[in-house]
């Protein structure tokens, strides 16, 4: 096979395109612009750290099941870790959102970065709601019976039945975590491709 033929293969073309868009030194940079040295820039990575704990504790809960997390001390502890890491996750994500909104972080061709972040937020809210109804306790039963009226009023109850524990649990532990992780990955890749948005006074650099 000649070099020209190799270069025409989809693997070669895809590799060249990926390396051109995201060279290794931009994917894992050693330094960041000076303006990144601000507390307002730490909440994105705080959100991801919390997401890591959410996934880890969720995996442990899935391994041992509801009887374990309802009845044992360690189960209570891991269940609490899952809850409080979610609290930190949303807390940090909302401050991150406010910070980026105040910076108009979609400037300089960063619209896809903004959109992937916003959709991740929506997927996370849905993951939180399905988590409420997956607890398998009186709290989740109460929340589900209240939520069904809201969902049914939209006509969506036929497809998304909050009283169906199996369906809600699958959404909570499979579909929505996959969506949140994939979107977070895409969001981070977009940040690396386009760089961290600079402050307004450096806007001329952004447009360049």
């Amino acid at each position, binding site marked *: 096979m000649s070099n020209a033929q190799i270069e025409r293969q989809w693997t070669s073309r895809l590799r060249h395109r990926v390396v051109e868009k995201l060279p290794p030194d931009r994917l894992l940079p050693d*330094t960041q612009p000076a303006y990144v*040295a*601000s*507390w*307002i820039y730490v*909440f994105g990575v705080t959100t991801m750290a919390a997401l890591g704990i959410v996934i880890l504790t969720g995996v442990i809960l899935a391994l041992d099941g509801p009887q374990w997390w309802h009845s044992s001390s360690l189960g209570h502890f891991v269940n609490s870790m899952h809850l409080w890491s979610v609290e930190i996750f949303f*807390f940090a994500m909302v*401050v991150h959102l*406010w*910070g980026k909104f105040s910076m108009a972080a979609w400037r300089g061709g960063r619209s896809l970065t903004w959109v992937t972040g916003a959709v991740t937020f929506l997927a996370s809210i849905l993951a939180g709601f399905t988590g409420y109804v997956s607890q398998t306790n009186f709290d989740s039963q109460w929340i589900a019976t209240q939520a069904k009226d809201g969902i049914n009023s939209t006509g969506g109850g036929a497809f998304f039945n909050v009283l169906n524990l199996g369906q809600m649990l699958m959404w909570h532990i499979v579909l929505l975590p996959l969506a949140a992780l994939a979107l977070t990955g895409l969001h981070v890749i977009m940040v690396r491709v386009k760089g961290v948005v600079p402050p307004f006074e450096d806007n001329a650099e952004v447009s360049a």
Partner: protein
Amino acid sequence: MAQGWGLGALINLDHYGHYIQWHVIQISVANLIVIILMVATFVAALFAPFPGRRNRKGTK
């Protein structure tokens, strides 16, 4: 269960929630506290000095 532990919750949460109501707006005190903390964190993040910022040189 928590009563059996030496380190129980710092705040006793074993009671019904408290709510604040203003016309059609109703919010639990717990949610209001979280929102206030988020706003305070946001403002602090904008103005609090970042460690080592002065020693940082230029951009990459």
